């Protein structure tokens, strides 16, 4: 039964980071007895309402949701909390410290660190959300198809997954992005999707294989339901839980990856304003102007943290074994 072992492996090139999320999520799909819970009144509740019941009382979930909500708001309307332009820089103010109008001080180019940190949220959140969406859609579709149809389809898709898995991510980024001339966020997102989907694909595949064997799926099949109906109505709702968990955590790592790519000189390009650009620009000046490094790094860390904690909370809520 090598198939099972395939499902357990969580190899990766994502700097090792994300597969543990994968491995942790693996435990979900193996929950015995399926995803049905029972409410206090004996009335059966779905996995989701059960989870929601838990989440509403989980402070970790509440705090991380609030942080994320705040980020989304300032991404959409940065002018709510800052009045300046992130591109307005005066060299005369280079590396000056905190002062009225610039609570975080100025960076090496004399740009207002506060303004840039606020505006950077938009780019970072865009990169994270879009990359995660792309990875999730591509990964679930390919992984789901492989898991559902099995056989040759599965073998071919699984091998393709392995191929993309085997390429170290940072390396792929260096190669692919070093020739990009566009200064939008799309090449970076595209690259993340291209090398990130195998991670979700594996989870989705394993998860679909498990759900497929459930009695109600067999029943639907016996009743003559079409493939698409079975996949969408019966399998997807139950297989999606581990995917969501991994995707939430992955979102944080994509934001972090953008910064690493900037450090290697292949990330986003000006006039984009992103935390990654600012962190890598400030890092050589760590001894003279630590504040220019501290604030964008702090913002990035808090954001990544919020998404990881959110993913954690959702996983705990979805995993009946840990109640």
């Amino acid at each position, binding site marked *: *039964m*090598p198939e099972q*072992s395939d499902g*357990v*492996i*969580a*190899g*990766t*090139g*994502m*700097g*090792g*980071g994300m*597969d*543990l999320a994968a*491995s*942790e999520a*693996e*435990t979900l799909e193996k929950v015995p007895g399926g995803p049905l819970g029972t409410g206090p009144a004996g009335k059966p509740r779905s996995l989701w309402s059960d989870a929601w019941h838990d989440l509403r009382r989980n402070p970790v979930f509440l705090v991380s949701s609030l942080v994320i909500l705040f980020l989304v708001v300032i991404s959409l309307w940065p002018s709510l909390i800052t009045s300046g332009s992130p591109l307005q820089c005066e060299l005369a103010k280079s590396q000056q410290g905190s002062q009225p109008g610039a609570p975080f001080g100025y960076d090496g180019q004399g740009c207002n660190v506060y303004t840039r940190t606020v505006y950077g949220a938009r780019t970072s959140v865009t990169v994270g959300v879009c990359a995660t969406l792309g990875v999730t859609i591509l990964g679930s579709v390919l992984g789901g198809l492989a898991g559902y149809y099995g056989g040759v389809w599965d073998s071919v898709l699984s*091998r*393709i997954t*392995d*191929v*993309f*898995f*085997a*390429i*170290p*991510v*940072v*390396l*792929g980024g*260096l*190669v*692919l992005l*070093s*020739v990009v001339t566009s200064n939008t966020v799309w090449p970076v997102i595209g690259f993340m999707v291209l090398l990130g989907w195998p991670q979700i694909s594996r989870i989705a595949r394993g998860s679909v294989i498990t759900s497929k064997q459930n009695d109600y799926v067999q029943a639907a099949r016996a009743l003559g339901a079409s493939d698409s109906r079975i996949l969408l109505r019966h399998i997807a709702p139950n297989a999606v839980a581990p995917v969501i968990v991994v995707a939430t955590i992955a979102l*944080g*790592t994509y934001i*972090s990856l953008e*910064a*690493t790519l900037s*450090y*290697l000189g292949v990330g986003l390009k000006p006039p984009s304003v992103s935390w990654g650009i600012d*962190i*890598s620009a400030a*890092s050589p000046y*760590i*001894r003279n102007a630590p504040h220019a490094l501290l604030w964008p*790094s702090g913002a*990035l*860390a*808090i*954001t*990544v*943290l919020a998404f*990881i*904690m959110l993913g954690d909370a959702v996983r705990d809520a979805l995993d009946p*074994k*840990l109640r």
Partner: protein
Amino acid sequence: MGRYVVRRLLQMIPVFVGATLLIFLMVNVMGDPIAGLCGERACDPATAAQLKREFGLDKPLWQQYLTYMGDVFTGDFGTAFNGQPVTELMATAFPVTIRLTIVAILFEIVVGITLGVVTGLRRGRPIDTTVLVGTLVVISVPVFVTGLVLQILLGVEWQWIQPSVSPDAPFGELIVPGLVLASVSLAYVTRLTRTSIAENKRSDYVRTAIAKGLPRHRVITRHLLRNSLIPVVTFIGTDIGALMGGAIVTERIFNIHGVGYQLYQGILRQNTQTVVGFVTVLVLVFLVANLLVDLLYAVLDPRIRYA
């Protein structure tokens, strides 16, 4: 078991071909390396054309790939632009990176599992919360920031370590770089172990073991730990390949002349032969590590039998 291994080995072939082809295509997307080779002053067309011919860059892409793979199977990984055979570069780079990886893996095993066991056994207590928050912070700060801060603090301000690694790269100098390289995985190992321990703590066999009066440490080491470590070992095993390939950032910060450094140089100079050669070896390491982990899995968990 034997048949399973053979099957897995056969499956590796298309993956290996696919991955090398993919990286070959990617490197070629980067374009013509000759311009960079010529420096600030463009080479005259005759020299440029001849250099192209010499490196085989004038051939169609598929032919370049076939020639290259043919050579690889005879042990010839081509020549870097500075005239050195890629195999020589590998001979100097891989031992360094392997040492770095060993240090990183040791950190994951020793520190990661210890912290994981401690927190898993004391779920919800202050120590658990502290470690959990700590791991989250480690995960959320980009590795290059961690590396640079440690380098400045330990290497310059407090002078505990050498800020860079000498060409011989002895184990002693690789401790901090190894820690930086391992940091994120370390945090994950801790969390994975914790989850796994916490889960198994409530399993029937642990309850049985306690019920029949076994001493606590024996229950933990013989029953609980052994079963809980299965996913951890899996993770660490598959992490080997990722660590070796992911060392680009760490090796750059600490000036370590290993695989990551060679890859970085190779990419900057668009040196197809170097990049493809090193990635080919990394892909092999990754595939073999995956296979070994699966086999190890069968050894650790008697419930799994490979047909």
